């Protein structure tokens, strides 16, 4: 059989006018497209001998097309995959059963330098001059893969750091609260007032510790998602953060979303807790759907007042003395991990109360 790597008549430099000139040049056009594409393309026969390689193989693998043709495919494979490859292709030729997904899988390959690179590969099977051949279209995604791994590592380290620091702070905090209680038990009234102030600060430190932990978890990719009813998850959150005088209502029907339930619960705890904290003691909070695009949490409290809506989601920004300023940052992190967007507005229908909309939600 003739090598498909032989240059086609007419060459590969095509002027647009040539393309319309007929079937012969159409072949040349496609040939040129394949040769010059930025993805590496390698074609093998049933014996894994390389029949064709396009120019991009030089950039991706460090081997020129000429150097690859006639060589075994294992030339560009890490050694640990050699046996598996031979078995898989033999099994496929014999039984027609594929061991791998042929479309868009990620596999490591070996560069001429000996370094491993990461590829996104799509396999195709076709016939060439009566022979069964297999082509792989390969994109180098090494940088993306490494960046992702690096980010995952950093996130994990951050979470560990926050976790260690937070836990190590709890012990001395307990001791400080204990010492304070002992001191208050024998303090005069005016000293006791001061110590009461100190206790308030200690409680605030504790809130900060818990929020920092939650914040560290926000970098965590969300776990498995499932269809979650907004009514039930918002109801659970309300049990934790709601008060007797405040009310939670649902617009009919609030609907369901595809979400990591635990993270969604934390999102609602923060949004509802916020409404209770800032909306006044008898605040009425409503949760409802946004016609399939997401959901909202709105209250009839005083709205954002002097608080800068652009800074609402910043770490540590708070409009009150009681908050730690991490709540909405946590909300945004959870939303982002799901691919959602959170926006804050003042709700005209509720006398300018705070309204948070979560959009870009699937299954709402």
């Amino acid at each position: 059989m003739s090598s498909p790597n032989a240059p086609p008549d007419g060459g590969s430099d095509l002027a647009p006018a040539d393309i319309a000139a007929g079937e012969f040049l159409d072949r040349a056009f496609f040939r040129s497209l394949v040769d010059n594409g930025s993805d590496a393309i390698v074609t093998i026969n049933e014996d894994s001998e390389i029949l064709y390689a396009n120019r991009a193989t030089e950039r991706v693998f460090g081997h020129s097309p000429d150097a690859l043709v006639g060589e075994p495919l294992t030339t560009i494979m890490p050694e640990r995959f050699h046996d598996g490859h031979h078995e898989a292709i033999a099994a496929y030729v014999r039984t027609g059963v594929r061991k791998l997904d042929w479309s868009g899988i990620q596999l490591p390959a070996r560069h001429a330098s000996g370094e491993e690179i990461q590829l996104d590969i799509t396999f195709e099977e076709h016939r060439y001059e009566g022979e069964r051949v297999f082509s792989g279209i390969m994109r180098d995604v090494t940088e993306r893969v490494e960046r992702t791994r690096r980010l995952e590592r950093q996130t994990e380290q951050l979470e560990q750091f926050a976790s260690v620091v937070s836990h190590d702070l709890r012990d001395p905090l307990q001791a400080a609260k204990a010492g304070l209680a002992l001191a208050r038990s024998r303090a005069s009234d005016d000293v006791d007032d001061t110590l009461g102030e100190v206790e308030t600060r200690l409680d605030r430190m504790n809130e900060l510790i818990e929020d920092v932990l939650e914040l560290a978890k926000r970098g965590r990719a969300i776990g498995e998602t499932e269809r979650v009813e907004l009514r039930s998850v918002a109801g659970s959150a309300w049990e934790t953060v709601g008060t007797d005088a405040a009310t939670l209502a649902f617009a009919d029907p609030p609907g369901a979303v595809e979400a990591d339930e635990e993270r969604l619960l934390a999102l609602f705890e923060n949004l509802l807790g916020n409404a209770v904290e800032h909306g006044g003691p008898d605040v009425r909070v409503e949760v409802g759907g946004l016609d399939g695009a997401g959901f909202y949490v709105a209250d009839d409290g005083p709205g954002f007042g002097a608080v800068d809506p652009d800074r609402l989601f910043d770490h540590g920004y708070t409009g009150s003395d009681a908050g730690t300023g991490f709540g909405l940052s946590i909300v945004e992190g959870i939303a982002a991990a799901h691919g959602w967007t959170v926006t804050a507005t003042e709700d005209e229908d509720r006398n300018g109360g705070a309204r948070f909309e979560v959009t870009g939600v699937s299954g709402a």
Partner: protein
Amino acid sequence: MSRGDEEGDGNGAAGTAASGTVDADRPVVLVVDDEEMTTEAVALWLGDGYEVLTAYSGEAALETLDDRVDVVLLDRHMPGLSGSETLARIREREFDVRVAMLTAVDPELGVAEMPFDAYLLKPVDDDSLHETVERLCRLADYDDTVGELYAVAQKRAVLESEHPPGILEENEEYRTLVEEHERLQGETREVTGGMDWAGFERLVGDL
């Protein structure tokens, strides 16, 4: 078990030696923590309703512990004998005592197999301590099954507050715990005929 009506007389705060005088009418709580300020404050907080004994190490706790003690509050990170080792030895000696871990350590998956009755995360204050200790004392009024149910429910709640469902469901000890919880809920319903329902509801209503 009845609870004394005496006002706190400073006995708790003063009685911080490893052996205190024990008033027969009041439940006895043993606080074990290497941080002396913490044990003293716990003694102060609980002093209004309980006899409080304190120990600054697991070893001292085991020496102090006898069958007068109703509830042990046990730190986890201590030099020498750790909280979980101390807990294991308390259980070996088969005292009829309820043990609450009182610790800064987040409950890892392994706590599913630790034989405590409650898990309190530091920092605690007067109110949260009273609530837990009162409940643990009240358990003595009920069948053993109720006590087991309480411990299993506490353990489950503590794990569920700390770990996402996906991770828990893959953990064999957790799955066993859930089965145990469901079994005990069924059994408890059978044995609760003729009991003090109002008190029972208060105790296990949210288990």
